[in-house]
């Protein structure tokens, strides 16, 4: 009833090809953006901004990046964490070399380094597929992590081996480093994430995105129809790594403030992969839902005993949160292997025919 496009006629090609052709979707997106840009900054406390929203947005962007590669082009990758690390270390080196350049610009540029590395490690994808490709990207993960630990130049030969983010400002507002307020960092992360998500959503429904999907669905057929696998696959690797690289740079610049190589370990790769699988392969919106599930849900679960004034140990809470999240992952994947994006579609379908389902 509420969600019904009946009566919305498209009178031009632009209207028909819009990113969100249905009016309710437009209104819904407007509300989400309004909440993100106005309501949350006005109402949220520092903890919510710094420990919930900023990581959530960073992970969402990384999940979008991996989704381009795994969800749309069908190339399984376990190197996401390392590609994020490349972005972070590149941005860190760039800020040391060009201390006066705007840090947001450097973060966006750092993605190109990640894209180049990603394309190099994407080369084997022309010969090998599926799980075998996962193993070569795993090699990328270990090799790059080794570089972060062993090449002193990357972290300016700090005794601690960690990269520490200097204080930088833009328009008189401090946006990176320890003195930056969570609000300022939140706005930067939110803007970058929304812009890149919008851009990727548009790329995906155009010629490039469709050629990725052709490769994913049947590469021989795609080749016969004139799609060149070399360029297409490498471009998927490059675009995916670019997005992941920017997410990785944002992770250390606007969230953590300092990062050790272990921040970009295989655990992070798996975390992002789970977000993509749970959210739904081949869906930009699903990346946000997956990131929310993996990052926000455990925080909420840990907060519940405190709110109810139940006195149980911190480690028991941790274990309980682990078990509940694990059980929910299994539940959702059994019921709907296509992830939250598919569930959301089913829900939309149900809303459409509500209250008289047929």
């Amino acid at each position, binding site marked *: 009833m509420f969600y019904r496009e009946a009566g919305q006629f498209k009178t031009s090609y632009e209207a028909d090809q819009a990113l969100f052709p249905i009016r309710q979707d437009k209104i819904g997106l407007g509300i989400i953006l309004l909440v993100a840009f106005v309501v949350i900054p006005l109402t949220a*406390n520092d903890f919510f901004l710094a420990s919930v929203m900023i990581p959530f947005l960073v992970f969402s962007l990384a999940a979008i990046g991996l989704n381009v590669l795994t969800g749309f082009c069908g190339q399984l990758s376990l190197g996401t964490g390392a590609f994020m690390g490349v972005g972070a270390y590149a941005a860190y080196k760039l800020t040391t070399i060009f201390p006066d350049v705007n840090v947001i610009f450097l973060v966006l540029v750092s993605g190109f380094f990640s894209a180049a590395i990603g394309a190099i490690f994407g080369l084997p994808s022309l010969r090998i597929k599926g799980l075998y490709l996962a193993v070569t990207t795993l090699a990328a993960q270990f090799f790059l992590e080794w570089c972060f*630990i062993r090449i002193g130049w990357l972290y300016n030969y700090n005794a601690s081996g960690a990269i520490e983010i200097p204080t930088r400002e833009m328009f008189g507002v401090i946006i990176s*480093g320890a003195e930056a307020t969570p609000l300022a960092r939140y706005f930067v992360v939110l803007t970058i994430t929304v812009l890149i998500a919008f851009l990727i959503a548009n790329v995906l429904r155009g010629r490039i995105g469709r050629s990725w999907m052709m490769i994913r669905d049947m590469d021989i057929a795609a080749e016969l129809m004139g799609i060149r696998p070399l360029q297409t696959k490498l471009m998927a690797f490059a675009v995916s790594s670019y997005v992941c690289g920017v997410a990785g740079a944002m992770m250390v610049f606007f969230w953590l403030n300092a990062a050790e190589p272990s921040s970009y370990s295989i655990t992070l790769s798996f975390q992002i992969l789970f977000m993509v699988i749970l959210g739904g392969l081949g869906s930009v919106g699903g990346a946000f839902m997956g990131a929310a599930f993996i990052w926000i849900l455990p925080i909420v679960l840990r907060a519940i005993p405190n709110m109810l004034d139940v006195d149980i140990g911190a*480690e028991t809470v941790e274990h309980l949160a682990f078990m509940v999240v694990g059980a929910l992952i299994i539940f959702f994947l059994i019921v709907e292997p296509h992830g939250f994006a598919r569930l959301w579609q089913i829900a939309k379908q149900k809303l459409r025919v509500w209250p008289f389902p047929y």
Partner: protein
Amino acid sequence: MKHLKTWACATALAVGVTAGAVAPQPAQAQDTNYVPLLTYRTGPFAGSGIHIANGMNDYLQMLNERDGGIGGVPIAIEECETSYNAQKGVECYEATKGKGALVYNPYSTGITLQLIPKASVDKIPVLSMGYGLSAAAVGDVFPWVFNVPVTYWDGASVVINYIADQEGGLDSLSGKKIGYIFLDAGYGREPIPLLEQLAEKHGFELLQYPVPANQMQNQSSQWLNVRRDRPDYMIMWGWGAMNPTAIKEAVKIRYPMDKFIGVWWSAGEDDAAAGGQDAAGYKALNFSGVGMDFPALQDIKTLVVDAGKTQTDPASIGTTLYNRGVLNSVIIAEGIRTAQELTGKKVITGEDMRVGLEALNLTQERLAEIGLAGFAHPMKVTCEDHAGSHPVFIQEWDGERFVKVTDWIEPMTDVVRPLLEAAAADYAEKNAPWPERTEACAQ
């Protein structure tokens, strides 16, 4: 199946709504001093972390039970689980700092590095007791960070001093091979600059054996190299599951255990027990008392542990790591007490706590007064020196327990202090603009 999907949609919706509705809200009574404890009882480092967490918690709880807190104000203790993970540590920090936290004890060099720049902004001191950034001992550059009673660099110099004693003087170190096996993280890499400097100065060869954090339980390749290189001495900077594995491997390759020296974080009974009788002779640095013949520990036993107010295993009281946790809480408690005396307030803030820690003077008499005579070396923090005391002693595993085998050994302050100052200046320069110290010296 159709219904299942409806259920799934409903569950997803319910999860989403709860997530939206539940936002952790700080709520804190006004008449307590709030001390958050960042601990880890889960994950690969839990084996070491549980004892530390119990020790820290039990001493503060004992003060609450016995004296009603400090200066008549109870201490509100809250544990937050970090799993030794830097991201979770920062999350714990953000979640607890708004409740009026007095001081943070991250118990992880990785988390400490994250918190150091935040400390001066949020005005909450960081107490990294015998870990973290060595350079933080330079109080002029790091007014908000304390690493009493000793830095890693002090510790490394004590080991070299001890080895020199065994060999007959620093001059006889020349030509010797000293192996260094360490957790390949901020923690294990911290003493390398000092060891390299000393190697150059005294002419010994430093062989490094890094152990990646995800390979802690599989060190056979490192110890194979040790067997090939045959270093005269082995030094270990290990933590968590790395310690027992290293000791087991050392026993397996028949490395002479009396030439194997661990840092104070590799001094746990559980760690050495992994090697059993064969590990006898293994040595480790330490700066907190061994055993439970201290009135304060007896109080903990009767008032907290026997009363069932904690999860501590009674057998673990008096073990090295448990006592280390107790010492950490002693420093917190004495910092609060000093701050109360200096400011005249009963309920203090993070800024007061910083003053209290900077004026900390834990004398022999005071230690005896609180029922811990001889539990630690007297420590006196000054505005310049945030590490306070420095000497450590060496304890040896006799196959069943640790026994103290040396007196307090002084570190090579003449070598360490200039390096610390250089490192602090370097840190400030790399993190420019690093805030100048504006806090007045309390003494």
